[in-house]
């Protein structure tokens, strides 16, 4: 058992194409790390660098005490599940699962034992003699998992393994995945652009953007304390309200309404963030209140998503999640922004201030 460490990883194709700029991170035994980010953020390239399918331009990759940067993929003792599953179409399920073991010249007996074990664990016993083309999408996905598990590798890599499943199946397999990898005391690196997967599966999430690591934290903290403006806007649905506001008298002005800034020195401009679910209807005793005009109500079933034009700044729209039971008579609504759920970011750098 060993941990996985990336040290100052960089991949440069040309001066303009630098998918991975400088990424350092560590995944411990039994940890489930998700690389999360929009397409083109460098998450897949990072995974391919770890797998040895690409060679880093700079930086090192360590698995335990081994520097594997220059090793061929096959010699790194890693297992990878591909988005397309990449099952060998001309081999049966059993042959697919056994292929890496055969290459390691394990005894026939042991190969059979391990293949049977993993097939049983994933409920594939009945399918071992089929070809991939005779399997359903969910079954193929499990074969791909089995092929990775049977290796008993030092590191598991998973590249969007759920994205080819339909929505219903995806939720079930997600839960199964969590169970499965909890039992493995091995670092797991999981790539996805789906924040729900990242939130539910991982023990740690690395948010990537533009080839750089934006934040590396447990999922809950990513949600409650986004490290910068990008993370704040990328994680959470509906998206966080983000406003660039001017400051006067130790407060940022949202239209006609001052919001006190909890900083020793207040910059002339600041970015205020608040999640729609933290915007509530104002009660009499509330202090941080604003007023505005409702111009759009979208029903999400459990809740209504309101879009409100802030008084004094009609170009600003704040979105609020309100219980579906709420009835409104007037177009004008009074809302409260609870102070403990406000996020403040630097207007220039986007970094979190408070």
């Amino acid at each position: 058992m060993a941990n996985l460490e990336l040290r100052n990883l960089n991949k440069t194709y040309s001066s303009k194409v630098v998918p991975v700029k400088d990424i350092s991170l560590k995944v411990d035994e039994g940890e489930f790390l998700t690389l999360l980010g929009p397409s083109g953020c460098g998450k897949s390239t990072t995974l391919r660098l770890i797998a040895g399918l690409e060679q880093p331009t700079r930086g090192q990759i360590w698995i335990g005490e081994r520097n594997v940067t220059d090793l061929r993929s096959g010699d790194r003792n890693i297992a990878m599940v591909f988005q397309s599953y990449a099952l060998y179409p001309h081999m049966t399920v059993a042959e697919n699962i056994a292929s890496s073991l055969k290459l390691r010249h394990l005894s026939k007996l042991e190969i059979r034992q391990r293949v049977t074990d993993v097939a049983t664990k994933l409920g594939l016993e009945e399918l071992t003699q089929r070809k991939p083309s005779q399997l359903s999408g969910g079954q193929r996905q499990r074969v791909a998992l089995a092929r990775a598990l049977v290796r008993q590798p030092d590191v598991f890599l998973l590249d969007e393994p759920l994205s080819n499943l339909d929505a219903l199946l995806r939720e079930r397999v997600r839960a199964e995945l969590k169970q499965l990898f909890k039992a493995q005391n091995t670092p797991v690196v999981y790539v996805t652009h789906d924040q729900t997967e990242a939130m539910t599966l991982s023990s740690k999430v690395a948010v990537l953007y533009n080839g750089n690591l934006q934040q590396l934290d447990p999922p809950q903290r990513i949600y409650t304390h986004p490290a910068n403006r990008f993370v704040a806007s990328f994680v959470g649905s509906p998206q966080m309200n983000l406003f660039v506001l001017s400051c006067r008298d130790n407060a940022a002005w949202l239209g006609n309404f001052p919001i006190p800034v909890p900083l020793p020195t207040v910059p002339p401009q600041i970015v205020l963030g608040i999640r729609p679910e933290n915007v509530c209807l104002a009660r009499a005793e509330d202090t941080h209140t604003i007023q505005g005009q409702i111009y759009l109500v979208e029903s999400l079933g459990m809740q209504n998503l309101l879009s409100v034009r802030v008084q004094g700044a009609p170009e600003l729209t704040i979105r609020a999640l309100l219980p579906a039971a709420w009835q409104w008579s007037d177009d004008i609504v009074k809302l409260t922004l609870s102070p403990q759920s406000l996020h403040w970011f630097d207007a220039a750098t986007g970094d979190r201030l408070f």
Partner: protein
Amino acid sequence: MSLIQNLKLVHLPKSKTSNYSHLLLSVFVLLVAIFCLAPVLWQLLTSLKVNADISAVPNVYIPKRYTLAHYTELFTRRPFLNYIFNSALVSITSTVLCLALGAPAAYALARLRIWGEQVILAGVLIVTLFPYILLFLGLLQVVQALHLGNNYLALIIPYTAINLPLTILVMRSFFQQLPRDLEDAAKVDGYNIQQILLQIVLPMTVPALVTTGILAFIFAWNEFIFALTFITRESLKTIPVATAQLGSSSVFEIPYGAIAAATVLGTSPLVLLVLLFQRRIVQGLTAGAVKG
């Protein structure tokens, strides 16, 4: 006028199929079929007629007597079995060689980032346009220098080469469609490059190899100018050359029946290939040409 009507059919494939346009389409289809088949069928009919019917004026379209005499003559009085063997040997060998050389090259050009890839591709594209007449003089000298005259190799080598560009283009477009993940998965599993090529890629490549092989075989079987120039010994000649020379072999009378029978014999393997593999031939041709 006919084109306009034709277009109407293109335009609304199903909704407005009135009887009129239906009929028109049938007529066009029939014309296409007749246009393509008539010369072949006429040759077939000629080959089965007795000599009196062949030289009858006006022509006999529905003969009362049929004969296989022209065919038996080819095998008894002339070495046609030999010609067929030569054509088959040369075509099959060169096809196999062409696939063996062309498929790896196509893989490299599709998958591996090699230096000069664009130049190689451009070169391959350009040579597909070379008429063979431009090559025969230089090749003749190669053949003479290597003492390959009247040797199967004098045909096998150029046939392999003339089919290489098409093979490389068709196979390359196939490899580009092949999901890369499979090869990556194989690398992670620990296969080395030779194992990936032989154990993972090759089994998936069989259909494309068949497609390309059929095209290469057709081109090799049909080739004329090299076979005419490099082979002069009767026993080594291929079918197209031998048949073309049937007419000039006898001074007094042109053996129309024998020529027709030889044509039928020489074309029948290809007719068979087309009937069996029409779809693949079309795929291969379009893949090869459109990539250019």
